[in-house]
């Protein structure tokens, strides 16, 4: 979605402001939100793409004026309610008044270390051969889905070069709406900065994104001049 999260190339946010001490968390509640989001993500009621989608679905003004873990919190509350794991009244009061819903898994304390040290890979086999090859010129498709996508606005319509073919990965656009992992080939596509931002832009840089196969289309061979 073209929401508040799609920030690449925007202006007006001011200078980057590193903190002197850079604490990982800035309040006790931030730690709890972090832990709750991780633990609830493990239940299998939703997945990581759905959580990203819930965060970016905050109205843009709210997204841009909320702190990072406040975004996580608001999205987590929405997910909990949308999946009927708890009611608004319960979240407001902190008191349980309805029975729990069934969940596929619960993350146990002793399982955290081994599970998180192993990780949760997203690569998946894909039957079809890759459509594009390293070195090939491709165009990022013009897509403006109202739902979750990982193709940022700033590359859409632009031509770049496939640099790496990474194999099959879970497709976020379907996975985010719990419509299946539908794995696709994933590529690294490199764009010239001037192509993305124009001739007046800062010179001498290239930008790459990781693009799923359905985000890309072939570029017609250019006519000989």
């Amino acid at each position, binding site marked *: 979605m073209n929401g508040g999260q799609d920030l690449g190339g925007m202006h007006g946010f001011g200078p980057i402001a590193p903190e002197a001490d850079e604490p990982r968390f800035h309040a006790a509640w931030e730690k709890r939100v972090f832990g709750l989001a991780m633990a609830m993500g493990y239940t299998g009621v939703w997945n990581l793409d759905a959580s990203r989608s819930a965060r970016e679905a905050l109205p843009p003004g709210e997204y841009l004026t909320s702190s990072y873990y406040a975004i996580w919190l608001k999205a987590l509350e929405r997910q909990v309610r949308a999946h009927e794991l708890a009611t608004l009244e319960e979240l407001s009061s902190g008191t*349980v008044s309805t029975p729990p819903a069934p969940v596929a898994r619960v993350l146990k304390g002793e399982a955290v270390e081994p599970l998180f040290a192993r990780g949760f890979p997203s690569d998946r086999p894909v039957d079809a051969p890759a459509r594009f090859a390293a070195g090939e010129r491709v165009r990022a498709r013009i897509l403006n889905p109202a739902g979750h996508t990982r193709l940022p606005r700033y590359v859409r319509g632009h031509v770049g070069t496939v640099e790496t073919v990474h194999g099959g990965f879970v497709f976020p656009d379907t996975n985010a709406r719990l419509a299946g992992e539908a794995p696709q080939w994933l590529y690294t596509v490199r764009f010239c900065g001037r192509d993305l931002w124009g001739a007046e832009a800062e010179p001498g840089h290239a930008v790459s994104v990781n693009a799923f196969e359905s985000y890309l289309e072939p570029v017609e061979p250019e006519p000989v001049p």
Partner: protein
Amino acid sequence: MAQNHQDQDHHDHDHHAHEESELSPMDLRVRALESVLVEKGYVDPAALDALIETYETKVGPHNGARVVARAWVDPTFRARLLADATPAMRELGIGGRGGEHMVVVANTPETHNLVVCTLCSCYPWPVLGLPPVWYKSPPYRSRAVIEPRAVLGEFGVTLPASQGIRVWDSTAELRYMVLPMRPAGTAGLDEAALAALVTRDAMIGTGLPRPPGGAG
């Protein structure tokens, strides 16, 4: 068992008891959420503790610095790291959530690498820990892809015009770590001493390693 205040801060299972006097609306809101999720059986409080402890205290840029130092001293490791970073890091016991599919990109005199996630906050947790606020915030996310040289300038990094900048926007589950160039004058340093030169920002690309013998 005698507990001093510090023990309470870190180990008391009623995490909020000592904060009663200063609970903000956000504290109350999160406490309510946690109470409900725990009481309904979706969340094990011990898992929360373990998650927070892991990512607050155990996982951090010291891991990435070990990887960089090893790559500086061991050309075959460096080659394995650049070819397929995830198993190479596993050789050092490093990996896991947020780093299942690692890519390491090496700085050269021709190209400086910079990592960003314009769409959210993707970051290589196993090597760098949780990201700092600036990495997750709109100024960095908006500007890194359109004016990386200006962004580097704000971090005090001025590159020669001849050195191009390659920006890696982490739009899928690949996670990027920058392998900085080994600083001059470090021929005599061992791996641990080299690792001490490797800052977190050097592995994001917003900084360069410390020079040897510097003030630290």
